[in-house]
């Protein structure tokens, strides 16, 4: 699990997000893979490939080295699965939206006010339509 969480972090690193978020995404991904034998084999094979390219332990590599190894693997089906699933699981989380400053479900708070919709104070307002 630690290696998968680290893989997700290498794909989509956000200093503002806690380790718990990445652990959670990794758990959810592993659960998806576990539901289908072919996907589980793909995922395990992908992890094995990372370790093989690291002479045994991808986690012990520096961040730059980890990224370099991932780049070598980026055309593989395993990489494709992990990348697409990581992006989906990470960027559909309301806690991630909150941390990254995205408003999310506006219906839940009745939509934005005029002041919020036009909140920019570093540019002048458009002139009215002639």
């Amino acid at each position, binding site marked *: 699990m630690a290696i998968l969480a680290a893989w997700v972090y290498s794909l989509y690193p956000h200093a*503002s997000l806690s380790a718990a978020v990445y652990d959670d995404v990794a758990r959810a991904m592993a659960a998806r893979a576990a539901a289908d034998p072919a996907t589980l084999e793909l995922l395990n094979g992908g992890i094995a490939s990372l370790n093989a390219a690291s002479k045994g332990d991808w986690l012990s590599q520096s961040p730059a080295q980890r990224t370099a190894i991932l780049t070598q693997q980026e055309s593989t089906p395993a990489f494709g699965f992990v990348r697409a699933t990581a992006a989906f699981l990470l960027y559909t989380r309301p806690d991630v939206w909150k941390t990254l400053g995205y*408003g999310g479900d506006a219906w839940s708070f009745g*939509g934005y006010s005029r002041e919020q919709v036009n909140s920019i104070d570093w540019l002048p307002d458009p002139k009215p339509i002639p």
Partner: protein
Amino acid sequence: MSKSRHGLNDAAVVIIGSGAGGATLAHELCTQGIDVVLLEAGRRIEPAEFRNDDMFAFGQLSWLDPRTTSGNWDVARLSPNMPAWTVKAVGGSTVHWGALAYRMQAHEFAPLSHYGSIDSANLADWPLDLAELDPWYVRAEDRLGVTGTGGIEPLPVTNNYKVMWNGATRVGYRNVRNDRHAINSQPRAGRPACLQLGFCTSGCKSAAKWSTLYTEIPAALATDRLDLRTGSMVLKIEHDAAGKVSGVVYADSAGVQHRQRARLVCVAGNGIETPRLLLNSASAKFPQGLGNGSGMIGRHFMKHVNALVFGRFEHTVHMERGPVASGTVFDEARLDTARGFAGGYLMQSAHVGLPSFGIAVKPGAWGAEFGHWVDDYANLASVWMNGEDLPAAANTVTLDASKKDAHGLPVAHLHIDDHANDLAMRGHYLKQARSLLGAAGARQFLECPPFPATHTLGTCRMSRTPSTGVVDAFGRSHEIPNLFISDGSQFVSASAQNPTLTIVALALRQARHIGDLMTRRAV
């Protein structure tokens, strides 16, 4: 499931598809006292079921039945399993649309006359002009409640529009406006004003945005002449020995097939499903497809040239607040071949949510640099392009015999090669968008590749003569007097404008024409 008002043996007008064209036509015909059976493949999803959630909405609303694609357009490489993004629900793509409602420009009805012949394109002039459509545009604008028309106030200025307006005016653009929305700025027509949710394209939960789902459909049902059958996928249009349409075969949501008799049939399934249905309705008398003697059905597929550019600013923008498509720069929609291409394009302040940004708009993106873009989501503004692509005879919707749908019918295959004119236009836009965003203060730019097609046009084009098109100036089949096309398939050119207002204007006009023909027993 709604109770059937009309029996299978009642020869009503059968309309296929409940989007901008089909539902508007249904409403108009019912108001004229004509019985209509409207067959919609999707189900009726009410606003209470919509969610302010990009990914959920995608799964809920999209036409996910398979289509295939080929050609050198980017989408064939980036989204081979989903070359088009249309809606499967009552309301069609009016559930998803951003509600930008423009009239075509006069010269865009006659591109052959104005642009001249262009290699590898099959330009043609429409058999009608802006003057002819003008009164119907007026009616359509009133029907849709288009801001900036009929005294309707524009929506409030949004952050994303404010950035675009400032950048645009600084680089010298003169025609920048935040009107032309089919979205209530005040309560109107029994629907509330916009709540500034920012999820127009996930289905409007407040119903402030015009969508046939909660406008034309309920109005038509109130006449007691509409029989709306949802979950009803039309498989084939049948004809009699004389070559007139006699009825349609459709599958209901349980997969059971039914035959509905028809006095006439109006096809409004969009620019992909309409030609597909006509091709799948081939018979001994119409071996190339129903009404396809000209061989033009499925040809000249147009979708607009599109592109999306993000600018990254040093201060917060919060682009997601307010309507998805909040304003327009019109300057580049002019005809000016000195720029290196024929036709023009609109620039629109159009945002995407963080999920779409992180997951969809930059396919395959990952790593620290992309992560920093997502980190700065709140400091991003974006400009979208909608440009006129040219009709090419080789850009086609055909039947993919190697892939069948759940009913055993060949799926639609889109073959699209970019035209040099499209590429020159996109290149120009990318330069202008960076200039504009830079003038507003952006320091970094992210260009996104083209998206799957949502505007699907041209595949049953109008023409004066039967050999050069599929339908006449009223969308009536040249070959089959009681077969009509009522969606964007009729378009002869794409123009620089988003198509919905023109589709509605044509449907209003076609309804009058059909009513006249029926009254005179000419059909």
